């Protein structure tokens, strides 16, 4: 448990990764959790980067918001857990 806690990061840690995918600053984007409806800025979400990919969880209900796998020149982005993502045009 302590180890899992220690591996927990936040949305700031994937600012570079998300910028690669979305091409704009995303830590101030607001995401709505498909599970509990909570709206959080991406900088606040829970991030685990020790899985084979990156796993993003809702800080309110801990359900998975997003999974990203990056390798061999491609990205796989699963956003099933995000109902809506709102962000500023650059």
């Amino acid at each position, binding site marked *: 448990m302590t180890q899992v806690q220690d591996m927990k990061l936040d949305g700031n840690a994937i600012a*570079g990764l998300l910028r690669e995918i979305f091409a704009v600053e995303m830590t101030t984007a607001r995401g709505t959790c498909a599970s509990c409806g909570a709206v959080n800025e991406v900088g606040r979400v829970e991030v685990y980067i020790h899985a084979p990919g990156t796993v993003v969880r809702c800080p309110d209900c801990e359900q998975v918001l997003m999974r990203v796998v990056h390798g061999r020149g491609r990205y796989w982005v699963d956003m099933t857990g995000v109902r809506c993502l709102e962000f500023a045009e650059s």
Partner: protein
Amino acid sequence: MARAAVLGRLTWQFGTLAEIVRETPRVSSLFFDVPEWPGHLAGQHVDVRLTADDGYRAERSYSIASAPQDKRLALTVERLDDGEVSPYLVGELRAGDRLELRGPIGGYFVWRGDEDRPLLLIGGGSGIVPLMSMLRHRGRIGSKTPARLLFSSRTLADVIYREELEHLGAAGDGLRVVHTLTREKPAGWTGYTRRIDEAMLREVAWPNKDSPAVFVCGPTPFVEAAASLLVAMGHDARSIKTERFGATGG
């Protein structure tokens, strides 16, 4: 249109190391000249990548330590013995060497200095780095915004930026610097000597009614503990901005 799209993308570029300043036995500040640097906000970070001869790449994020107004881009890096990148940055990289980096990155954990809310900064170990950028920025723009820094270090010798923090705290511009040491009580020490707890926060932190801008940065357990204490004291969780440094072995 193509140009705008290119500008929106993060691109890797080279910085040239101009100067190394040793902050503590394990921590050094690296000052880079970056010709195409677009400028940054206090609290942002850069990604750094190293490429081995066989093409293997290691990438890490480091908070920017310098103020937006500073001529050189400064990173302050703690050497982690089992790390892949930090032992190279702190130990092998020499003045004149080039380093591949991209940034600035992030927009959530930033302080622009354009609002009147009092500023509460809570840092653990190298979590001080983005907070230092904010304090340097505050100094450069002549801000009188009341500010308090609570900085937790293991021992006195581990206190990063100790002298500079002393100067900033003595400038009489509304900044109060408070230290706590978790593994040592030096002779004559007047600061705290324990982990951050509620009693300490009640003495140092602005109460919730003052609507402070709160930034907490450090190792994950440190950040979680400090943020939980603030929430228990009535602060709105969404007003507390946190940045966790994981045990990822930088």
